[in-house]
């Protein structure tokens, strides 16, 4: 798939009922793609992400999600995600099933997914109440007899990430905090990468990774597509927005009004 408008990519690649991951660890969170999914009214999605934050709060509050697979669902440095809480605590706008992991478990599940393995192995999920509430199994080392944890790998239908730039062939370059973006993209059956810009040729950048075009589904040019998250080298994290979101999202009506004005009425990228 060549370089296409975001609205086309979401329309073609994201379907009702899909398992979808919009990944990002604070950095490069694909907000614009999440907004387009909301605009197109997708329903019954299973959302995967280690650190669901504002964009998942928005998708949940707008009724896109049936289930959330995650390890830490908060507004980083601020507090709660009120739409996520409202869904879990009060079933508004609908019930939200949770599959909850630790970061280490999610990271192992992403690596295993990218590796085409059905499970990942880690030292974890020992004691406490989490193991009884999630999908985890014990596995025995055939050489030492040690017991370890196994988590099912993530294999989403669609993986969506944001990155700094791509070349005209669709080779994607990404740097700064790398998170699990490569794993998310490689573990997914289909993928979308939104980028700040397209350039003629990718030049080397220290700390950068490149995802070749032939493992990338659609590439969509969406300047500031990560805002209020940030794109290292392009713009800073809008910390004020994350702080402001706390008040906007506490109230259902204020939330809907904000979404109407800033997302639903916005022009698709």
């Amino acid at each position, binding site marked *: 798939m060549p370089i296409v408008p975001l609205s086309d990519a979401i329309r073609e690649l994201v379907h009702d009922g899909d398992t979808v991951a919009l990944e990002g*660890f*604070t*950095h490069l969170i694909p907000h614009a793609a999440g907004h387009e999914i909301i605009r197109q009214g997708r329903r019954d999605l299973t959302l995967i992400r*280690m*650190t669901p934050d504002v964009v998942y709060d928005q998708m949940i509050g707008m009724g896109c999600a049936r289930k959330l697979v*995650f*390890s*830490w*669902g*908060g507004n*980083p*440095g*601020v*507090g*709660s*995600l009120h739409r*996520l*809480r409202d869904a*879990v*605590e009060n079933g508004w706008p609908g019930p939200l099933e949770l599959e*909850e992991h*630790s*970061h*280490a478990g999610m*990271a*192992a599940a*992403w*690596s295993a997914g990218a590796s085409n393995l059905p499970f990942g192995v*880690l*030292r*974890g*999920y*020992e*004691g*406490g*109440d*989490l193991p009884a*509430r999630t999908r985890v199994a014990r596995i025995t080392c055939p050489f030492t007899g040690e017991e370890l944890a196994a988590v099912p790998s993530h294999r989403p239908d669609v993986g969506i990430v944001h990155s700094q730039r791509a070349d005209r062939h669709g080779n994607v370059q990404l740097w*700064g*905090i*790398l*998170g*699990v973006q*490569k*794993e998310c993209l490689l573990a997914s059956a289909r993928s979308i990468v939104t980028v700040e810009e397209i350039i003629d040729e990718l030049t080397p950048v220290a*700390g950068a990774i490149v995802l070749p075009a032939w493992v990338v589904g659609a590439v969509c040019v969406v300047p500031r597509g990560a805002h209020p998250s*940030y794109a*290292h080298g392009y713009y*800073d*994290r809008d*910390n004020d927005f*994350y*702080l402001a979101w706390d008040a906007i999202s506490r109230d259902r009506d204020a939330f809907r009004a904000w979404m109407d004005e800033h997302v639903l009425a916005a022009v698709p990228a």
Partner: protein
Amino acid sequence: MTYTADEVMAVEAARRIGDGAVCFVGIGLPSLAANLARRTHAPNSVLVYESGTIGAKPYELPLSIGDGELAETADAVVTVPEMFAYWLQGGRIDVGFLGAAQIDRHGNLNSTVIGDYDRPAVRLPGGGGAPEIALGVRDVFVMLRHSRRAFVEKLDFTTSLGDRVRVVVTDLGVLEPRDGELALTQLHPGVDPEQACEATGWDLRLASDVRETDPPSDEELCALRSLRTKGDA
């Protein structure tokens, strides 16, 4: 100089970080404490953030664990799977900081739900890195404001285990494991033992050698405040 309860928490936690210690830090008070240690007595301590930055040296406190400055000032940036597999699980971290909504007398922590898991009164953010930090680092430091709501007889949910909790720094004092449970070992200046007991939901034992925390020095407070130009939840 006068100081706040949060400041004495940060200062007291910072003091316990040895020079050269490799610290796995979250955002907020732990990040404040670890950065303070690095600016004062422990210039060789190493800050590792779970976002993948190793040896970050932020000039200002980050609001989030993935702020750009952490990557820019780090010795190395690794992926999140590598961070958890090679670095945390690899056993390379000396000190891990944890916060929580609830703690029990054994240092077990709850950061998952208040109330029943399936119908929670409050859905908290969840464990994040805590379950494996609690078992994968040498020493766990807990930072938590003292209240009966937080220091409870029984957790609503056990997110992480207390086996490696070496110290709990609160805004009233310090708890450390003694004879199988957390006991009060320090009181911050101006706090009396009754206040700490009153703010604890279990029958808090006092160590035989409870001492008063040294008040934050001017040097510590200046270093601390110079860090706090950005938000720190």
